[in-house]
């Protein structure tokens, strides 16, 4: 159950699970900060407090989504990932306030957006799908009419045009016999089909960004694979950017270009998916990889992560993972730890990882 990697000096060695993969040639020079002016959605130093300011649940989150990029947010319940994506959508629960930081979408500041502004953004620029599609649909109206209603209201289409477009959208999301599905009520459709309907509604007005919050968690594994493939296809055909939130690292690794790892309200590691999987630098990411269903069908020792995450909003000096980290040192607990860029666009918030990387760099020269 220990995280052995951190004890060895060469933290830069490839992760054992992927040892048979050809190593990437060389290591590029330290890349500049990940903040890019071409970001579609940009969160900077976001702080969110809950219970009317009683606790700070999200601390200093910075991340960006570029056009056509699929970014995955991964972490446990209470890590702040859902709160972050709800803040980006403007649907924070009661009592949650953005204390500090900014959220920008295509240059527009979302933290000070009026209700009118949000009506414009929702649907036309940002769409969303959540975990339980059945609870987001009216059970007594056919799904076709629910989609057509969105089209008529947002795009001003006529009844006939809306119906036609609805069938086209159902086809685009891979529904079999879309004409027939148009006339079915949610109870007649399976979970996978309902989620496709939700995706159709979310992309109906051609948004640039789709936020998917645990969208595949409740689906059967074969349907989950189909929905993931659908999201890939939508990105390829429409240039749709996706912010994909999940607690399942395997799903995130499967689908996403970039991965952002959340722990206790902070981003502890972020970078290209392949890079994070191959060279996880933060002990928490390494632990997640060990417990995740890595597509390994051999009989093996099942790993666990001992201990528990801190209470939401708990005040901790230094690293928030230090209590559970076998490699924690005094330096980890002395003060706030800033994220440092290691490799290309790969950031880590970990003192020991930074040390190991620096040592590795030194040895390589």
């Amino acid at each position, binding site marked *: 159950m220990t995280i052995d990697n951190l004890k060895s000096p060469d933290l830069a060695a490839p992760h054992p699970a992927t040892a048979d993969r050809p190593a990437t040639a060389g290591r590029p020079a330290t890349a500049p900060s990940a903040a890019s002016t071409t970001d579609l959605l940009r969160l900077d130093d976001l702080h969110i407090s*809950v*219970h009317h300011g009683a*606790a700070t*649940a999200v601390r200093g989150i910075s991340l960006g989504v570029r056009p056509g990029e699929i970014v995955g947010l991964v972490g*446990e*319940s*209470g890590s*702040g990932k*859902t*709160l972050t994506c709800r803040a980006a959508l403007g649907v924070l*629960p009661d*009592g949650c306030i953005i204390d500090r930081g900014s959220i920008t979408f295509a240059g527009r500041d979302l933290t000070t957006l009026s209700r009118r502004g949000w009506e414009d953004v929702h649907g036309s620029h940002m769409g969303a799908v959540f*975990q*339980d599609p059945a609870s987001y649909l009216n059970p007594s109206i056919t799904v076709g009419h629910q989609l057509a209603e969105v089209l008529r209201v947002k795009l001003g289409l006529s009844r006939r045009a809306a119906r036609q477009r609805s069938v086209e959208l159902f086809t685009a999301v891979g529904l079999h016999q879309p004409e027939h599905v148009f006339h079915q009520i949610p109870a007649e459709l399976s979970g996978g089909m309902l989620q496709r309907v939700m995706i159709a509604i979310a992309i109906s007005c051609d948004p640039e960004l789709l936020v998917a919050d*645990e969208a595949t*968690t*409740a689906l059967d594994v074969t349907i989950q694979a189909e929905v993931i493939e659908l999201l890939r296809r939508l990105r390829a055909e429409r240039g749709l950017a996706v912010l994909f939130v999940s*607690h399942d690292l395997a799903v995130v690794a499967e689908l996403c270009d970039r991965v952002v790892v959340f722990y206790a309200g902070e981003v502890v590691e972020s970078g290209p998916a392949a890079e994070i999987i191959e060279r996880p630098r933060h002990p928490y990411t390494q632990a997640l990889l060990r417990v995740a269903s890595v597509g390994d069908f051999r009989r093996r020792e099942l790993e666990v*992560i*001992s201990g*528990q*995450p801190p*209470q*939401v909003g708990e005040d901790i000096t230094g690293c928030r993972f230090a209590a559970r980290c076998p490699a924690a040192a005094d330096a980890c607990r002395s003060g706030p730890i800033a994220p440092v860029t290691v490799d290309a666009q790969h950031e880590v918030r970990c003192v020991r990882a930074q040390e190991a990387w620096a040592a590795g760099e030194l040895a390589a020269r």
Partner: protein
Amino acid sequence: MKRLIGPQSVLRLPSARIAIVVLLGIAVLTAFGSTLAPQNPLTINANALFQGPGAHHLLGTDYLGRDVLSRLMAGTRLSVLTALEAVGIGLVLGTGPGIATVFLGRWFDFAANRVTDALMTLPYIFFAVAVTAALGNGLVQAMVPVGILLAPFFFRITRAATLEHARAQYVEAAELMGASKLHVVRVHVLRKVLPTIAVTTASMTAAALLAVSFLTFLGIGVQPPAPTWGGVLSSDLDYLAQAPWAPFIPGALIAVTVGALNALADAFRDRRGAGTLAAQPGPIIRTHSTLEPADDDRQSQVA
């Protein structure tokens, strides 16, 4: 999520507190009304007919010069006790079958439901008249048919509450371990159905009290000159010209008591809270990475 159940939580509502005070007063009168009455409720005083509320007679006198306050106080016992008698009959006849019907199979349930339907169509006044005609004029006898006709309400409400809990997965789990139906009722279901029965009892007591008042108003079951609330009201209405204020007094007493009972029932029902843990809304998969007790309430807000 904190669940407020039980009597202590009910007291937080101001309406419930007022209701309890009122009902405590009525209870005292039921027990000690005759002895507490300032004057003899039966004493006729020809010199003091139709007096309004005053120093000597706090609520005035009736058409025979009898002190109204004393009559009402003395009459409380008979009215309340017979109302409780009816409720008691209804409770016994209704709740037992209401719980049992869920466990005794489809045919029993069908039969019980049809009997209930039949009883609910019958008017209690006629039955009260019939019973008193057969068994003699007395309030005790007259309330028996009222009790029998209250039973269907107890039956239906108890049945609905039991159904909800009898289908719970923990009941299935108990059955899989070899629990008999009696065990399931005793260990799992009864405790959860009692709050519903309590609420129903309060509501039905209010209904029974109204029935008592109406029966005595009609003169059924009344043995004059014994005072009853409805009887006082009835005689007041006969002499409306001489004392127009008079009917308000017993009417107010009936209304306040019935109102207090209903308020108590409402307060208790509202505070009962969810019957099961899983009644909370939220994401289907709620993952917690802890192996220690977590503060579930706060986690759900954030995740």
